[in-house]
């Protein structure tokens, strides 16, 4: 078990290094950091001096090691656009994104799994057909259109929910939360639904496909031949086996919720990390782009690690495989 986790951890570090390298390349070679920092009227002498001071004339690997070192301390330089430390910018906006992501992940997971099981167990029923059709429409609706539609319906027409922002927030230490005020909750509803819909459809379709696959296996047939109750077969046998592959993909999907928040945050002007990123891309604010890339990769790697461990707990075959060194 420990060896398995250590190996996964090693792989994660490798992935992080590769991503850091890409981020570094972006950081270092996209646009000229010095030109963006000094004014129009700087002399070549000034620029050269600044280059040396910033270490831009050092050998490549020294710069990379310095980049990684700084990144480990959470330092990604100064945003060109906002003239503030990138780490501070991200930290300020992180709570907004995390609260949004968790809310929608929860919606996506609960409804996705439940609807997936339902449509798999009653594949021929009318309601399953309706759900499947709606889900296909859901996949075809771009997230931003869902957001606009919800805004139009609930904010413009019905005027029951706010159309943008986080509402009132409360400062808890460095964490600024919207979950402690009524307006915060009301502001969260529309963005959370918008963000969750796409993942919800994916998870639902995945659960359904996996479960249908499992229902066709020999051991389910044998379980029926053994005379187990429908309930025991569906929820005792089929569901557990369905969950094994679902955990992986659902986990990764939920990880991507954070990155997916880019669109939702833009539509609802949600003050999170995603909208910061979009604004940075528009003006090529390289330090923010690089930092965001590393941040998302970190989220991905952590979730991946959790998924691996979960997998390990659910599937006895893996436990044995790891024990014997496979």
């Amino acid at each position, binding site marked *: 078990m420990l060896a398995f986790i250590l190996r996964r951890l090693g792989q994660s570090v490798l992935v992080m290094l590769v991503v850091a390298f890409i981020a570094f390349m972006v950081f270092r070679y996209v646009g000229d950091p010095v030109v963006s920092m000094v004014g129009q009227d700087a002399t070549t002498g000034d620029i050269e001096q600044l280059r040396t001071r910033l270490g831009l004339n050092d050998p490549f690997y020294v710069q990379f090691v310095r980049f990684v070192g700084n990144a480990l301390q959470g330092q990604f330089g100064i945003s060109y656009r906002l003239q503030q430390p990138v780490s501070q910018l991200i930290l300020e906006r992180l709570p907004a994104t995390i609260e949004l992501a968790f809310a929608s992940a929860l919606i996506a997971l609960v409804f996705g799994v439940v609807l997936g099981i339902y449509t798999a167990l009653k594949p021929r029923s009318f309601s399953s057909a309706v759900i499947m059709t709606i889900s296909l429409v859901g996949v075809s609706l771009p997230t931003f259109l869902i957001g606009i539609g919800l805004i139009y319906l609930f904010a413009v027409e019905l005027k029951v929910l706010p159309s943008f922002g986080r509402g009132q927030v409360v400062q808890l230490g460095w964490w600024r939360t919207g979950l402690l005020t009524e307006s915060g909750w009301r502001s969260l509803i529309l963005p959370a639904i918008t963000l969750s819909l796409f993942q919800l459809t994916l998870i639902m379709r995945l659960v359904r496909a996996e479960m249908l696959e499992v229902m066709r296996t020999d*051991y389910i047939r044998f379980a029926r031949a053994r005379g187990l109750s429908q309930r025991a077969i569906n929820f005792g046998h089929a569901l*557990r086996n369905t969950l094994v592959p679902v955990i992986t993909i659902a986990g990764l999907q939920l990880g991507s919720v954070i990155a997916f928040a880019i669109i939702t945050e833009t539509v609802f002007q949600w003050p999170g990390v995603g909208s910061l990123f979009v604004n940075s891309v528009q003006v090529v604010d390289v330090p923010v782009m690089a930092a965001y890339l590393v941040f998302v990769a970190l989220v991905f790697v952590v979730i991946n690690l959790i998924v691996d461990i979960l997998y390990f707990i659910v599937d006895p075959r893996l436990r044995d495989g790891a024990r014997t060194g496979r």
Partner: protein
Amino acid sequence: MTEPVLSVKNLVVEFPFRDDVFRAVDDVSFEIMPGEVVGVVGESGAGKSMTGAAVIGLIERPGHIAGGEIRLKGERIDNLPEDARAKLRGKRIGMVFQDPLTSLNPLYTVGRQLVETIRAHLPLSEAEARRKAIDLLVEAGIPKAAERIDSYPHQFSGGMRQRVVIALAIAAEPELIIADEPTSALDVSVQAQIIKVLKKLCASHGAAIMLITHDMGVIAQTADRMIVMHHGKIVETGTVGDIIRRPREPYTIKLIDSIPTISRTGETIAPEAANDDRAFVEIRDLVRDFELGRSAFTRLLPGKVEIFRAVNEVSFSIAKGKTFGLVGESGSGKSTCAKMIVGLLRPTSGSIHVDGHDVWAGAHGLRERRRRVQMIFQDPYASLNPRWRVADIVAEPMKTLGIARNRTEVQDRVADLLTKVRLEPGAMKKFPHEFSGGQRQRIAIARALSSQPEFIVCDEPTSALDVSVQAQVLDLMSALQEEFGLTYLLISHNLAVVRQMSSAVGVLHNGVLVESGPVDAIFDNPQADYTKMLLDAVPDISKVA
């Protein structure tokens, strides 16, 4: 007169397809008496599995019972509502499926699956059910059952898992067990034990057995009575001895006729006295190792490597124009041998000479091998590219080796080859999926002949075919051997096929050639213990009880 456990009358099972309806079971009637073992035998598509599924009520949609009735101890069950039928399953009718590797839920321990089944049917507490589960495992011949009950299915071997499956099927003391090809996925040596366990358990628990199988040998050794099915209909019913010794219906006569047997029945092939001494194919000390558990990334790192030796110093030789049969169970290394001989896998050490050329020695050996050696594969569905026309499939070897280049020449040769394997030349324009399994195997033979080889490695050439088709393909292979003076290496797990086709035979076990020699000597007077066990275990119609 006692009442039959199972009585099936005029059963019809239909599958609606698009515009027409396929009758999988057509007007089938039979009875099974208490404690009786009834074999249901037939080739693929005979409707035998479907009959079993109909009895236990597990026909897959859109199939359904379209007529007739099924009675269990006189009580009609085919028209019961689904939940009432579900209550019968396991409680009064048990079932054993073919593949023990997939019959058990991999995520739960064997014990949990047993306890759950027992408690679904019998009013026992958790602890009582567990005790009963252990007893059942002991009865099924699982050693250290009390410890192993908490193991997961993957921790058991295939044979052990099938024992667990049988224990599960019998757990609630049903009156009837339907065993659908219970041993077909297992090795010969395990097969015999499983049949014994099945019979013993059913006898001690008083259950009748409906044994569904394609293997007449299994029925010959196991069943009291047998039912022969063909195209959804019952052809013949009778005691096993009667049908095997004195079949009445033409289909049964043909079927029994085409089953090869390990005992020499027909004329003896003339002993190999007059052959030329020079071996045409010479295998010397062939070894193949595999590294275990190394992914592409870890391979880059130094470290100790676990090595599995799949083939261990195997040596034999084949005279020109003869057939050498290589026999072994799964995992014995016989397919690995084949791959090394045809050039798909590089030997770790040892040599392979064909007509004096070392086939693994550089470009020269490579060229000689491609010219002289060909292969026929097991699965005729996978060995022909489904997107290619037959003409292109058969022409590929001759084009690749430059035997025929211009179009009409290629076409003439392909047509000629198809005729040789007894197919219409018109087959050229068709795709493989338009042919039956036997016809496909003939196309594969035509392709092998296309490069005008002298030596053909046949890896289980008939294992995927029905017996009657197997007989035709084997006949064809013999005829072609005669015509072209071909040398065969026949690899098979089927001892009867090897005995019928080969002049010499080698027995492979765990990568080691335990015995080899003239076919009659080995079969009639085996020396190695393993060979004796194998010959003893193989189900054969000559062993009819």
